[in-house]
């Protein structure tokens, strides 16, 4: 395996980590909608913890290895139009992903507080928060941005 093969493998692995994590969050967003028991919400939100680490490490690694490949490749340059578009989408995905994460973390914190107070019965406040949080909108923008990134990486418009 050449050094360039390793770079591509690491870049693709990091990209897999990002999309896989966004998939985990999407499943959580959809399946957590009907949760109203605080302890249940706390248990289910834990599923996202490994994905949170993966998406943070993966997004930085995918960008870093991607730029490295572009510098080494005679076919591409880091300032190519489709790569500039990818940087923009990467930034949008990162910013909106962080906002979404913060919104859901707030709900998780509230669920933990309810559990600590011994209020284990179904909570209308929790159900409403999960249904109406703006974290869903930010997650949707993140998902579309990541999908756009994948389109750019595969189709390479203008390359």
């Amino acid at each position, binding site marked *: *395996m050449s050094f360039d*093969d*390793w770079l*591509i*493998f690491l*870049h*693709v*692995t990091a*990209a*897999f980590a990002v*999309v*896989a*994590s*966004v*998939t*985990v969050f*999407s*499943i*959580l967003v959809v*399946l957590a909608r009907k949760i109203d*028991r605080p*302890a*249940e919400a706390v*248990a*289910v939100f*834990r*599923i996202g*913890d*490994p*994905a949170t680490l*993966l998406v943070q490490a993966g997004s930085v690694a995918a960008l870093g290895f*991607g730029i490295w*490949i*572009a510098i080494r*490749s005679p*076919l*591409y340059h880091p300032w190519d139009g489709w790569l500039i578009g990818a940087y923009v989408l990467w930034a949008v995905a990162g910013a909106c992903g962080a906002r979404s994460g913060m919104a859901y973390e707030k709900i998780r914190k509230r669920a933990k507080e309810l559990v600590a107070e011994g209020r284990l019965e179904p909570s209308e406040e929790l159900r409403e928060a999960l249904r109406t949080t703006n974290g869903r909108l930010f997650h949707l923008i993140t998902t579309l941005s990541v*999908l756009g990134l*994948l*389109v750019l*990486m*595969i*189709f390479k418009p203008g390359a």
Partner: protein
Amino acid sequence: MLASFHPTSWDVPLFLHVLGAMVLVGALLAALTAFALQWRPAVEFGATLRRFAFRSLLAAAVPAFFAMRIGAQWIYSKEFPSGSGDDPTWVGIGFMVSDLGGLLLIAACVLAWRATKREATGGLARAATILTGIILALDLVAMWAMTTKPS
């Protein structure tokens, strides 16, 4: 920089293949995490976590597997039209992993479904966890083979 050098006619099947594989890995990760969390002693809402794992497998992993596999066959027909000789090793690895992974995914779904019917965690959930972990490991092998293309 996925798939650096290829004709543009491969773009759509490649996109379907890669997106399917990425979502498959995510769905397996969600199921594996949920299974692993419900193993812990005295865990509350173990049944919820088992249901979550089953739904992740059925509603996300299975459709993603089909997208990945259809994309793979589609791009294979373009890259290696019939009569083009023996397949390279990495193609063989890919087919072996996806076929075995598909069978294991069906088995994991059935086990996970049966586990949702139980009050407590047990052998079924444990077996589903192990199978899900094996599929995820196989997918990593496939990812390595697809990107580095060992001949």
